[in-house]
């Protein structure tokens, strides 16, 4: 019944135990003097009277000790668990049932504590809300599970829609030379051409070449060869960087639309000077970088 005692008022209980100990001590001294008697000292004339007086004094001490103990006991709040009719188990005298009530009270205490502690835990945990971003993303992803499985017709209609919104100077042709992957051949006026390989609606590969360079070799689209000219090799490099920037599997349509809008800004590759230095040439190259948001032209070294 350790749990039981832990519920008691510690100060009062200690005081009660102390008075019990002094009471036992006094009683012990009393019985000791009763058995051993009192040795004669000094006058020795009134042996009996002295013995009686001594005994009386000790009995008074014991009596006051008993009173003190009773008071202390009354002060201790008894936190007796009342388990209703189960209390009758305590009066069962068969040895098997002797400890039943005791363990019943123990388990009652355990459940009581459990309820109490879990109550504290709930308040603490609700104060420190554990919001994990992954949980939120997982929910969104569940809403758009289709980026991995897009029908060719959907791709065509998205591309056509984007192409129309970009104006007359852009021509986008779609091919599917290797099954389901779509290959876009983009012609930007008389300035440059590009090949964009899509996986579903996501951009996988970009190559940029000059307007006079051939994109089709031996009847096949040459998607691995580099441009002869440095400026288009640089633009290819930047287009690949932009492709990674715009990559977003959750919104594939938005990604390809943004990428193609950005790509379209290269119509002014040779005409518009750098936004920062105001010149056309830097390191013998025109401004080959276009800002990803504002589409402003910048040289490789003038990038903000």
């Amino acid at each position, binding site marked *: 019944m350790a749990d039981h005692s832990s519920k008691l008022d510690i100060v009062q209980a200690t005081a009660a135990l102390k008075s019990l100990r002094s009471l036992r001590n006094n009683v012990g001294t009393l019985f000791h003097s009763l058995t051993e008697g009192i040795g004669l000292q000094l006058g020795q004339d009134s042996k009996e009277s002295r013995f009686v007086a001594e005994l009386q004094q000790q009995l008074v001490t014991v009596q006051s000790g008993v009173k003190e103990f009773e008071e202390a006991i009354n002060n201790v709040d008894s936190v007796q668990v009342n388990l209703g009719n189960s209390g009758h188990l305590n009066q069962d005298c068969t040895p098997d049932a002797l400890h039943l009530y005791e363990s019943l009270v123990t388990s009652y205490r355990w459940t009581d504590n459990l309820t109490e502690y879990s109550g504290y835990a709930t308040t603490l945990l609700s104060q420190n809300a554990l919001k994990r971003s992954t949980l939120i993303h997982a929910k969104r992803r569940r809403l758009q599970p289709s980026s991995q499985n897009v029908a060719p017709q959907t791709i065509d209609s998205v591309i056509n829609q984007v192409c129309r919104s970009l104006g007359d100077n852009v021509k986008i042709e779609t091919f599917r030379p290797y099954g389901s992957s779509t290959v876009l051949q983009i012609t930007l006026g*008389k*300035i440059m051409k590009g090949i964009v390989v899509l996986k579903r609606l996501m951009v996988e590969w970009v190559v940029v070449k*000059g*307007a*006079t360079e051939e994109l089709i070799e031996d009847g096949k689209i040459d998607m691995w060869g580099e441009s*002869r*000219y*440095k*400026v*288009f090799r640089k633009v290819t490099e930047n287009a690949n960087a932009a492709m990674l920037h715009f990559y977003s599997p959750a919104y594939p349509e938005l990604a390809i639309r943004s990428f193609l809008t950005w790509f379209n800004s290269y119509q002014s*590759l*040779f*005409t518009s*000077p750098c936004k920062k230095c105001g*010149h*056309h*040439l830097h*390191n*013998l*190259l*025109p401004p080959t970088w276009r800002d990803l948001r504002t589409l402003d032209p910048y040289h490789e070294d003038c990038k903000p």
Partner: protein
Amino acid sequence: MGVIVLQLFAVPDGKSGPQVIEMLTKRVIALGAVLSGSFIVDCETYSSTASLGAPRSVHLLHNSETPASVFALLEAASGNKTVALVADNLFDLLMLKLSNFYTAKKQTKIESRGPRFEAGDFLVKLGSVTMGPAFKGILVEVEYQACSLPAACWDLIREFMQGFLGGCVPSTPPQYIQNRFGDMLGTIDGINQYLEQFNAFRKTTGIR
């Protein structure tokens, strides 16, 4: 296959042709250009014999940039227009067979030769023009290979040319290019410009 701009560089007084070429070479190299061989463009003119009626000229040009081709430019009967023919090397031999109809004008073979530089996507050719033994002047050819549309890249070419030629580069493109500002230009447009310049050299005496 890009835009070719041919620019006359006036030889300053008291300087010889080779001195000017050397000066320009230094400037071009300072811009980051790399010497890559030399070049030559030559032009020979044939005129028709009396049996063909009104006299007409055929100009035969060779360009070391396109070594397998011969350019034959026939002056049209009316106006300043020319009819261009791009043929194989054998055309030179055919011209010899046609000597009954077209005869070579004497002492009119003119050529421009000099060093050739590559600077990024630019090609720079510094040519000294000579007619026979006489030095006539300096022609600078700048080609931007990456773009064939003058309307798009003229400003770019002008900025590059001003970088080493200085103030002699006009802000408006040459008349020949202005007339074809929105077209895709090719090798033949370079040849036409050379012919224009060569004709102007022939008309002037002394150094231009």
